[in-house]
C-alpha cells in the first residue's frame, strides 16, 4: 500500500521560501499570485494492506519524525 504525506508549515508561521517564490513569479509576469506556501511530499511504500492500520502507523511516523509539529502540519493520503 502506498502512502503520501503532505507536510506544510502551519498557518501563521511565516514561510520565507514561499515568499521568495511569490516574488519570483511576480517578476516573471505572473500577476495576481497572492500567497505561496512551500511544503514537501513524502511517499512511502508500506507492507501493510489494512488501510486503517496503515493510516494509524503513518500518523505515528509523522508525529515522531516526518513533521515537526511545532511549526508543521501534515496530511496523510493512502492509495
Amino acid at each position, binding site marked *: 500500500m502506498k502512502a503520501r504525506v503532505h507536510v506544510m508549515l502551519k498557518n*501563521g*508561521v*511565516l514561510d*520565507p*521560501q514561499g515568499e*521568495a517564490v511569490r516574488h519570483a513569479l511576480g517578476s516573471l509576469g505572473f500577476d495576481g499570485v497572492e500567497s505561496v506556501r512551500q511544503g514537501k511530499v513524502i511517499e512511502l511504500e508500506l507492507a501493510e494492506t489494512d488501510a486503517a492500520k496503515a493510516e494509524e502507523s503513518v500518523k505515528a511516523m509523522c508525529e*515522531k*519524525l*516526518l513533521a*515537526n509539529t*511545532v*511549526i508543521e502540519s501534515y496530511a496523510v493520503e493512502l492509495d
Partner: protein
Amino acid sequence: MKAAVIQFPGSNCDRDMAVALEGVAGNGQVSTVWHKETSLPEGLDVVAIPGGFSFGDYLRCGAIAARSPIAKAVIEFANKGGFVLGVCNGFQVLTETGLLPGALMRNAGLKFICKDVGLKVETTDSAFTSSYQKRQEISVPVAHHDGNYVADDELLAKLRGEDRIAFTYTDNPNGSVADIAGVLSENRRVLGMMPHPERCTEKAHGGTDGAAMFRSILDAMATA
C-alpha cells in the same frame, strides 16, 4: 569536570568544541561519542552537541540526529539534570528532541550567514553565562542557513517570564523572533544557541568573547 562531545555524520565543529572544553577541563577530560553509541561515558558533567550539518540536514536540520541512538541517552542525561550545550546544528538537534522549545527555520533572508555578530547577554543565571555581565555585549561568529528561531506568543511570554532567553542579537541577522540567539531549558541546564562560542576562545581566533562561557561551565561544575 568531565565532558563529552557527540559526533554525527556531518558534524564539523566537534573538534573545536572538544578543544574549547579541554581548555578549561584539562587534557583527557573530554571524550567524543559517536552517534551509534547507546550510552554516554560514566560520570559525565556536560554533554556538548556541536555545529555542522548532521545527516546532511536531510528532512529538517537536526531531525535525524535527534532520533539517533545516542540522542536517547542525551535526553535521559538531561532529564536527570545533566548539563547540555548545543551550538548551531546542536541547537537545532535540541529543539528537534524537544529538550528545548521552539524551532529553527530558514533564515528570513534565505542566505547562509557567516560573520561575527553582536550578542547581548540576557541572563547570567545559568551555568553557561554566569561569568558574563548581564546585558554585556559580546561578539561571536555565526555560520548558519537555518537560524531563524520561531516561538509562538505563548512560548515567548513563558521564555521571558522565566528569564530563559540567554542571548539576543544586537542586529538580528536571520529573522529570529524577539532577536533570540539562545534559549535555556526550564531547569536552566540545557542551553541552545546559534552563535559559536567555541570559535572565539583564543586570541588567534580573532576574539575571545566565547571564553567566559567555558569558564562559567567550569565554575558551575566546581561548585556543583
